[in-house]
C-alpha cells in the first residue's frame, strides 16, 4: 500500500484592504482573510483541515501556532500545519493533499502596524544596544534595503547594467497598478524612468521608487483536493508543480561568486517545479515574480531561466513583462506598487490565480491558462519557492 496520488487545486483567494490600516490588528486581518478566501471557495471554517500560517503570523503569547489556531478555529484537530513561506507551503500542501494527508488547507497572512523599513527605529538615549549580530549587519547600520543595494551594485558592476535599467521595472509595475483599483500606489498614476531616478536615494544605487512599499494588509489562499475542488464555487486553478529551495539569507556569508551561471536557490526550486509540472518556460502565460526591489525582478528572470545570466534588464526593456508582452508579470502592480504587507509572498500567487480565472478586468491577460509565481524568503534569493498553476 502506498500513498494515493490526488490532484490539488487552489479554490479560494482573498485580499483584505491593503494600505495604512491603523484601526486593524494583525489577527483581525488574518481572520478576515481566512473567512474571505473560504467564502470565495464556497466553503466555511468547518471545512478547514490544514493550516499554512506564514512564518511571521502572531498568536497569543504562550501558545504555539498549531495550538492557537486549532483552538481559535473551533476547537478541532487539524490534519496539517505547515509554517513557512507562501508558494513553498502551497507546494507542500499540494503534495500532502496528493498523499491523502489533508483535504482542505488555508494559507494566510496579515499584518497591521508593523514596518519593514528602518523608519521608526528610535535611537537609544544613553547607551549603545548590544546585538547578537556579531559580524556587523546591525552594527554597520545595515537593513534590508542595504543588502539589496549591495547586490544591485555588484550586479551592475559585473553586467554593465544602469540605474535606468533598474528603473524600467518600477515603471511597468506602476503601470499595472494603475489598472488595479485595489493597489496602494495605482491612484498616484504612472511614473517614468526619470521619476524613479529623481526620487531620493534610500541606499545607493536604489532610489525610493526602486523599493517596494511598506504597508498593512492580509491575504489568504485555500487549497483543496480535486474531489473537494469540483464542488467549490469557482473553477479550480490546478497546481501542476511546485518546489522550494534554501541556500542562505545574507550575502555576507556567501563567498563564492554571487552570480554563478548555474544559479542558486531560485534556479533549483524553479527547475524542479517545471520538471514536476511537465511544461516548458515558454508555455507560461502570466507570472508573479517576487519584486521587493527592482533588482530582484531582473535577477528572478535570470535565475528562473526565462533569460540568460546578465540579460534580465534587456528582457524587461524589451517589454516581455508588460501587459501585452510575451509573459505579463506582476499585473497587480507587484510589491513595488500594489502592496508589500510585511510578508507579501502569497500576493503574487493570488494575482496569478485571478488571472487564470479571468477575474482581472482592465488588467486581464487574454486567454491566460498557465501561470507561475515565485516567492522569495527573507532576503536576496536565499529562500525560494516556485508554483506552477493552470486553469482547465
Amino acid at each position: 500500500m502506498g500513498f494515493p496520488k490526488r490532484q490539488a487545486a487552489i479554490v479560494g483567494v482573498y485580499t483584505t484592504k491593503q494600505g495604512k490600516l491603523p484601526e486593524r490588528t494583525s489577527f483581525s486581518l488574518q481572520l478576515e482573510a481566512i473567512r474571505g478566501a473560504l467564502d470565495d471557495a464556497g466553503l466555511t471554517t468547518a471545512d478547514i483541515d490544514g493550516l499554512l500560517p506564514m512564518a511571521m503570523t502572531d498568536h497569543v503569547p504562550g501558545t504555539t501556532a498549531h495550538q492557537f489556531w486549532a483552538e481559535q478555529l473551533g476547537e478541532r484537530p487539524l490534519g496539517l500545519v505547515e509554517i513557512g513561506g507562501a508558494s513553498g507551503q502551497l507546494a507542500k500542501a499540494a503534495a500532502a493533499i496528493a498523499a491523502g494527508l489533508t483535504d482542505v488547507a488555508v494559507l494566510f497572512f496579515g499584518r497591521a502596524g508593523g514596518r519593514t523599513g528602518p523608519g521608526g527605529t528610535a535611537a537609544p538615549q544613553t547607551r549603545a544596544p548590544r546585538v547578537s549580530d556579531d559580524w556587523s549587519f546591525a552594527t554597520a547600520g545595515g537593513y534590508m534595503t542595504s543588502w539589496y543595494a549591495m547586490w544591485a551594485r555588484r550586479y551592475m558592476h559585473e553586467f554593465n547594467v544602469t540605474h535606468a535599467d533598474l528603473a524600467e521595472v518600477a515603471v511597468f509595475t506602476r503601470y499595472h497598478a494603475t489598472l488595479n483599483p485595489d493597489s496602494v500606489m495605482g491612484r498616484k498614476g504612472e511614473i517614468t524612468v526619470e521619476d524613479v531616478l529623481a526620487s531620493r536615494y534610500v541606499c545607493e544605487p536604489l532610489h525610493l521608487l526602486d523599493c517596494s512599499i511598506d504597508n498593512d494588509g492580509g491575504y489568504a489562499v485555500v487549497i483543496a483536493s480535486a474531489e473537494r475542488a469540483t464542488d467549490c464555487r469557482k473553477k479550480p486553478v490546478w497546481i501542476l508543480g511546485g518546489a522550494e529551495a534554501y541556500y542562505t539569507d545574507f550575502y555576507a556569508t556567501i563567498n563564492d561568486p554571487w552570480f554563478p551561471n548555474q544559479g542558486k536557490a531560485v534556479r533549483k526550486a524553479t527547475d524542479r517545479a517545471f520538471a514536476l509540472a511537465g511544461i516548458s518556460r515558454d508555455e507560461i502565460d502570466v507570472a508573479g515574480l517576487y519584486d521587493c526591489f527592482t533588482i530582484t525582478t531582473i535577477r528572478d528572470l535570470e535565475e528562473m531561466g526565462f533569460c540568460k545570466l546578465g540579460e534580465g534588464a534587456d528582457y524587461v526593456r524589451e517589454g516581455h513583462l508588460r501587459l501585452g508582452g510575451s509573459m505579463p508579470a506582476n499585473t497587480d502592480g507587484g510589491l513595488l506598487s500594489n502592496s508589500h504587507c510585511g510578508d507579501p509572498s502569497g500576493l503574487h500567487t493570488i494575482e496569478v490565480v485571478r488571472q487564470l480565472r479571468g477575474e482581472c478586468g482592465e488588467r486581464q491577460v487574454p486567454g491566460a491558462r498557465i501561470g507561475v509565481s515565485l516567492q522569495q524568503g527573507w532576503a536576496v534569493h536565499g529562500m525560494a519557492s516556485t508554483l506552477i498553476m493552470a486553469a482547465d
Partner: protein
Amino acid sequence: MTILDAAPAPYLKPLPEVRAENKPFFDALKNHQFVVPRCDDCGDYNWVPYPACRSCLSENLTWTPVSGDATVYTFTVCHRGPGAFNAEVPYVIALGELAEQPRPCLVLGNLVGTAPEDVHVGMPIQIAYQEIPGEDITMWRWIARP
C-alpha cells in the same frame, strides 16, 4: 596598521554582544589584530565564522591574524539608517574581499574617511581599528589603502 581616533561620545549605534564563541575575535581586535578562523586541516580561511570549516567540515579551526588588506567587492551609500545611524547619513557599508585566498572571505563593515562618491568596486581598502568611548570593545572599520 591604522588606529582611528576614538568614536565620538556618546556612542549609541548597536555593538556586538561578546560571548564565549566570539571572544577570541574581539580580544584580538583590542590588540589591533583582525583574526579569521583558519582550518588546521585544509588551510582555508572561513568568514563569517562557522563552527566547522565550510570547505572540509573540520572542527579544527584556529583564529589566525590576516593582513587586513582587501578590495571592495560591493558597497552601498545609505541615505536612511536605523536608530542612531540615521543621524550619520550618508554612511557607507562595504563588503571587502580579503587578500587571503584561495577561499575568498567577504568582510562587512563601515568604510570611513573617503567621500561616498569616491568609493568604487575594486577599490583597495584595509582594516582599521576604533575604540568605542565608555565601552569595553574595539571595532573594525574599512579605510582606503594608501
